[in-house]
């Protein structure tokens, strides 16, 4: 074999570059389209990397970057509530207990009214209804549920997660207030408000608290903040802080800047704030309610001559959060004895509660946003989808587990419930994984399937699993979808380059048949001539690559200048970062990915030019030389 390319590279470039000046329109159109394609891909890759980096940066503060799956032992569907056997059992329990209560009342010599106990089922217009919230309704449901699927807890979850690379499991317990926890305005208690029968739950500051591992909470605590144990440390939501401060909520279309400003304001206001509340158990609350009702009755009948005041009139407490006193007790000895027996009766049937009230002080140790969990893909607005994705959703109000462990009795005195939550939300778990893929797999494979009727939990799959606390798993998926889209774009680029470059070179060769013949006649070898076209293809590829890089750099610089601030504000608002120095990266050029894509463009250009070159290698030169 002789040497293949027997002319110098510089000569090839000289000759190849003359071809750029011919077929100009075609070449320009091809180069422009190609440059736009490559720029789009490079920009998309860089933006993807920027998003990834931003999410990592912003996520590093909170649980945002962690892969967590929540596990709820949801065992109860509506089917159970519609089950006549459950209804009948509730009735059975009702009959059994009311009979016992009646016997007890008889024994103690107090009046017993069966009507005072809520009926679990009743007929309305001839149709039977089940009152699932009633004492015996709940009892029957609990029984049936435990019979259908046994309750599952940490051991079952650990077993379920066997074989997955689990980092740790957090226990999360939700504790509803066993009474009311309402804040004292200027140190005073608004009893009239408390006694208002339909006083809304919102006015109760803490309807319940979540006990959360310190580790999950620490991100959201005010930086370098030390709380003391005299108050209950509490992580509150921005929204309830807003309500507490009686600020009007921002309108839904408020800008990110505005929202951020509000957040910062609330943080300043909340840091170190001690919120005094009054805890009243249900008996205490009932006492206030009775007292207010009687006082109202008396004042309404001030001018009514025939009105006889009740024998027992209460005195509202003078001290905030004080006990209800007795203003006037005109009861006979017999009446007092009856009241005493009634109390005894209630104790015996386990329904006596001594009124209890005390001032409880909470100290705000941090703020989190109440963000709807899950990705709202129904929204038309991409920004909204992104926002719903990026926000962390730590439950609030929450108290640190370490504090709870030390003060369990005191906390349980305020926040406890006798009944298991129907959906299993009283105790749930967050399983943390090292890897998003494993988390996704666990979620996909091990979750029970929600059935409105049946509930969800089964013995094999006792837990409903969902992404928890953040959307890292979803973000990770979005990133991988993005990568897939970019891969498709790269495939389009490759095909386009193949076809267009092949066509460009084929066209150049077709138009240059005479010229090729002259070169051959002058003494160029075929391979040298073909090499010129190869160099031509490489030149076009290089032009594309250089223009694309220049354009991408301009676009990238522009993006960083124009959008960086906006995206930073957006991410700060969504992630609620406490550290304001973290900036968003809109555009992150990754050298190796760039080199890879650009190399691909060049490689494809060369390969696709080989086809027309090969086809034209063997052409007869004499024909082209003969004219006329």
């Amino acid at each position: 074999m002789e040497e293949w390319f027997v002319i110098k590279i510089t000569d090839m470039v000289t000759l190849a570059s003359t071809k750029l000046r011919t077929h100009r329109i075609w070449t320009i159109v091809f180069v422009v389209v190609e440059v736009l394609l490559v720029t789009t891909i490079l920009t998309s890759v860089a933006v993807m990397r920027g998003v990834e980096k931003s999410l990592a940066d912003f996520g590093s503060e909170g649980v945002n970057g962690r892969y967590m799956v929540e596990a709820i032992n949801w065992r109860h569907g509506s089917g159970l509530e519609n089950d006549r056997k459950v209804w009948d059992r509730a009735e059975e329990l009702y009959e059994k207990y009311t009979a016992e209560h009646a016997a007890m009342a008889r024994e103690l010599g107090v009046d017993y009214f069966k009507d005072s106990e809520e009926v679990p089922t009743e007929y309305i217009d001839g149709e039977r209804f089940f009152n699932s919230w009633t004492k015996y309704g709940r009892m029957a449901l609990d029984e049936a549920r435990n019979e259908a699927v046994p309750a599952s807890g940490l051991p079952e979850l650990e077993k379920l997660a066997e074989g997955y690379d689990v980092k740790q499991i957090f226990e999360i317990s939700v504790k509803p207030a066993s009474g009311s926890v309402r804040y004292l305005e200027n140190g005073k208690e608004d009893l009239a408000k408390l006694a208002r029968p339909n006083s809304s739950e919102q006015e109760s500051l803490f309807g319940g608290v979540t006990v959360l591992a310190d580790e999950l909470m620490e991100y959201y605590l005010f930086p370098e903040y030390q709380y003391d144990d005299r108050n209950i440390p509490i992580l509150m939501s921005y929204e309830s802080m807003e309500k507490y401060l009686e600020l009007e909520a921002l309108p839904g279309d408020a800008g990110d800047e505005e929202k951020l400003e509000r957040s910062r304001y609330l943080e300043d206001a909340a840091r170190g704030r001690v919120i005094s509340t009054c805890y009243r158990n249900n008996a205490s609350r009932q006492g206030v309610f009775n007292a207010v009702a009687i006082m109202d009755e008396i004042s309404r009948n001030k001018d009514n001559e025939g009105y006889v005041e009740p024998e027992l009139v209460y005195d509202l407490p003078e001290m905030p959060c004080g006990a209800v006193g007795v203003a006037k007790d005109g009861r006979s000895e017999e009446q007092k004895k009856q009241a005493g027996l009634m109390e005894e009766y209630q104790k015996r049937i386990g329904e006596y509660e001594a009124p209890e009230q005390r001032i409880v002080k909470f100290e705000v140790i941090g703020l989190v946003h109440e963000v709807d969990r899950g990705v709202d893909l129904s929204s038309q607005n991409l920004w909204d989808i992104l926002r719903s994705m990026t926000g962390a959703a730590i439950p609030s109000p929450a108290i640190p587990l370490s504090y709870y462990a030390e003060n369990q009795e005191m906390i349980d005195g305020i926040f406890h419930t006798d009944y298991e939550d129907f959906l299993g939300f009283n105790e749930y778990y967050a399983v943390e994984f090292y890897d998003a893929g494993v988390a996704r797999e666990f979620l996909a494979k091990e979750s029970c399937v929600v059935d409105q009727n049946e509930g969800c939990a089964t013995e094999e799959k006792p837990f409903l699993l969902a992404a928890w606390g953040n959307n890292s798993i979803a973000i990770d998926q979005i990133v991988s979808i993005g990568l897939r889209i970019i891969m498709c774009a790269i495939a389009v680029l490759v095909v386009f380059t193949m076809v267009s470059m092949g066509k460009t070179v084929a066209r150049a060769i077709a138009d240059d048949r005479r010229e090729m013949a002259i070169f051959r006649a002058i003494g160029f070898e075929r391979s040298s001539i073909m090499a010129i076209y190869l160099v031509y293809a490489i030149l076009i590829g290089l032009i594309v690559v250089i223009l694309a890089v220049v354009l991408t750099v301009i676009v990238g610089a522009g993006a960083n200048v124009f959008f960086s601030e906006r995206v930073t504000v957006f991410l700060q608002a969504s992630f609620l970062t406490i550290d304001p120095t973290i900036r968003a990266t809109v555009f992150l050029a990754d050298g190796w990915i760039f080199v890879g894509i650009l190399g691909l463009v060049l490689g494809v250009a060369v390969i696709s030019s080989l086809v027309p070159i090969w086809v034209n290698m063997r052409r007869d030169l004499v024909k082209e030389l003969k004219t006329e």
Partner: protein
Amino acid sequence: MLDGGLLDGTAVCLWGVSKAYGKSGVLSDVNLAIGEGDFVAIVGASGSGKSTLLHLMGGIDRPTSGRVEVFGEDIGRFGDNELAGFRNKIIGLVFQFFYLQPHLTVEKNLEIPCMPALLPKVERARRVRGVAEMVGMEDKLGFFPAMMSGGELQRVAIARALINRPKIIFADEPTGNLDDANTESVVRLLMEINREQGTTVVVVTHDERIAKLADRIIRLRDGGVVCD
């Protein structure tokens, strides 16, 4: 023919050369020798096979049968690449339509035949200058073909044919596209080259005035040499 030795001093020798395209024969059994240093004109009617004959002698085309020897080499035995190298070093070609590269300057056009020869840069430049001076185009080296007249272009084309110092020049109707004044100067140039460098020149023409200036006229008719 009489004074030209067959082995010594023969530039081109054709032995029973025939050429056919498909079934139609163009040349049949042509026997011909051209002496070294001759200035030969090939004349004939259009379509008589002048170009075909020139291409066979110039190693551009291969005969259907017969043998072509150029400076003692049986070029039919050469492979494509060998033949290309042979054309590059031994033969200079001039065409009716000049065939210069429109997007290259005169200087670069002149360098083209040097490219396969892999000449060093300095030598290239020296040769470019030399041939440009020879054809009187030394002032036009930076020009592009579009800026020049037909006569000038053909001078450049001749210079390009000369750059590798060929032993023989084949010119196919070199004046076919030129006016009388330019025709004269181009022919004068070819004669000058023939005389001063000793380069063999074979010119295809249908211009009898040019043919008359040649040492020898080969007439073609019906696929054969009819008058010599």
